[in-house]
């Protein structure tokens, strides 16, 4: 157990790459290939359930991966990241219901609103350390949740935004068509992951890791820690908001639960499940949690017990997420046989 702990922090994957340009091209090619595979999937499996599953994975996956930019890369344990998921869903839903602007405009405007709110909240939060940061983000999340509940005339209160979100066609894309929505969600997911990966691999991304490992040292060598933390807080909020937008499109509405703190708790859980030291860990966690939720609820009424036991297995048994565990296991095996 203790040797596992000692290895935490910087596994082999964290080595900076110098040849940034070819890597970016390679990443873009991989992203494109993944998108094409996902987009062609309905031709092979036409099950609506599968497409729904992938759309939900896109919404939660973007949210969880963006949370990991804070938790895993920067060491900022946010308990309120879900507020941006909710903000995306409500912002987009309201914009479409009340103003009738085209979808791309509403999309950009929602991100702009998220940007401003995240900047204000982040400027207050990132001054605080560790558990206090966690609590103040939680407080902001609940403040937004309470506002949604009490501003009934705008948000519909605890009933949520109902009556459906209008989805007028644009650029030949019709999001009220299930297949179009599926392809659009995949495109947003892949683009989001690609951009987040570029952020994580950039010099700025390595600055974040340094802040996580030793903030004092980082500030001694002239890094503006507050500014870097605020930047990643706002960037992560934008991707979480995108996840919320996909969710609003998917369920054609927005509900207070989208902004409740349990969304943030689930995001943290997804990260722990999948692993926080590999970029794709949160994606793996998302797929695992959604499958787990879907299957367990089908078999038993007491899915809390089953889910709880699975969490215990990860927390007490593995002590890390699945991808972290797999990567370390692979590295140890390779080192062992390489000599």
């Amino acid at each position: 157990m203790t040797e596992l702990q000692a290895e935490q922090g910087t596994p082999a994957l964290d080595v900076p790459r110098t040849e940034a340009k070819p890597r970016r091209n390679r990443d873009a090619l991989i992203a494109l290939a993944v998108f094409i595979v996902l987009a062609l999937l309905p031709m092979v499996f036409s099950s609506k359930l599968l497409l729904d599953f992938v759309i939900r994975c896109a919404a939660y996956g973007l949210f969880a991966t963006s949370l990991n930019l804070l938790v895993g890369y920067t060491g900022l344990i946010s308990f309120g990241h879900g507020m941006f998921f909710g903000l995306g869903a409500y912002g987009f839903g309201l914009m479409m219901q009340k103003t009738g602007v085209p979808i791309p405009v509403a999309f950009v405007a929602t991100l702009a609103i998220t940007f401003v709110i995240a900047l204000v909240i982040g400027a207050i939060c990132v001054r605080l350390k560790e558990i206090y940061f966690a609590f103040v983000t939680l407080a902001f999340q609940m403040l937004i949740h309470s506002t949604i509940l009490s501003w009934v005339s705008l948000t519909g209160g605890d009933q949520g935004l109902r009556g459906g979100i209008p989805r007028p066609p644009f650029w030949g894309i019709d999001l009220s068509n299930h297949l179009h929505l599926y392809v659009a969600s995949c495109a947003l997911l892949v683009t989001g992951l690609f951009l987040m990966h570029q952020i994580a691999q950039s010099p700025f991304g390595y600055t974040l890791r340094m802040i996580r490992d030793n903030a004092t040292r980082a500030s001694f060598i002239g890094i503006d820690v507050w500014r870097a933390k605020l930047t990643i807080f706002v960037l992560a909020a934008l991707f979480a908001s995108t996840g919320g937008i996909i969710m609003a499109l998917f369920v054609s509405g927005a509900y207070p639960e989208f902004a409740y703190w349990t969304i943030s708790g689930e995001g943290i859980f997804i990260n722990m499940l999948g692993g926080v030291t590999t970029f794709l860990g949160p994606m793996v966690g998302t797929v695992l949690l959604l499958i787990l939720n879907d299957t367990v609820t089908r078999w038993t009424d007491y899915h809390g017990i089953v889910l709880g036991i699975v969490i215990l297995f990860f927390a007490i048994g593995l002590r890390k997420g699945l991808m972290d565990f797999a990567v370390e296991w692979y590295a140890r095996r390779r080192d062992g046989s390489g000599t």
Partner: protein
Amino acid sequence: MDLDALTGCLASSACLVTQTTSGFIIGMLLFLVAVGLTLIFGVLKVVNFSHGAFYMFGAYFAMSAYQLTGSFALAMLCGAAGTALLGLIFERVFMSRVYGADVLMQLLVCYAFVLIFDDVVRMIWGPEFKSMGMPAAFQVAPLFIAGGVVPPYYLLLIGVALAAAVILGLGLARTRIGKVIRAAAHNPGMVSALGINTGVIYGGVFALGGMLAGLAGALAAPVRSLTPGMGFSILIESFIVTVIGGMGSILGALIGAILIGMIRSFGSLGFPLFTEGLMYLFMVIVLVSRPTGLFGKEVA
């Protein structure tokens, strides 16, 4: 928003007494839960996310004991003792395995138990709302203080909670065990080197915290409805209390709990839908101006 109701109440002594009493009730229950939370954090450095479950179990234990025996005193005892035992087992078997691990792993173990405990309660007592009912001894005419209605049970509840606060405060400050606990909070390595088993202290503090939360649940059982998941809202509120008061400070927990109780009680008049929002707003204001809470010490 209904500011007229609020100002109207502030002008009437009857309403003032009623709202202040109900604020105290909320505050005292919150204090009992929050003080356990703050104690566990102060000594074990663990944020016990499953603490609300002990409150819930306290209430259910008390209700079952009352239905079986018909004795109110026994019901309180069962609520407190049962959760103390539960806390001890939980700490020794599960929490002690993740000391020194990532904070996230500790949170995750607690989160797992929030899910498990809620389902266990649903299995044993069923998913519907339950009620213990007011014991016969307290079904007497309410007192009238300056025109305000105060049920006698409320006075008992406030009295018991205040007594627990005083005993706890004096116990930690004056007794030998209290000194050892404070020493363990400050420097566990040194305490351990002096030949004191820190595992026993940790288990004991967790049991004590669980007992206080269980007592709160038992005291609340006659006046609140019982439901699986009831621990959750009180957990969030007691987090707010500990954070406002300063994590690890008992006096802070007391002041924070009374403040939150009053905000809830009077806020429900003036801002019926935004009462919870007021608490979070207050928490944000406190944290932004004093990041370690009103009575918290800066931890290096």
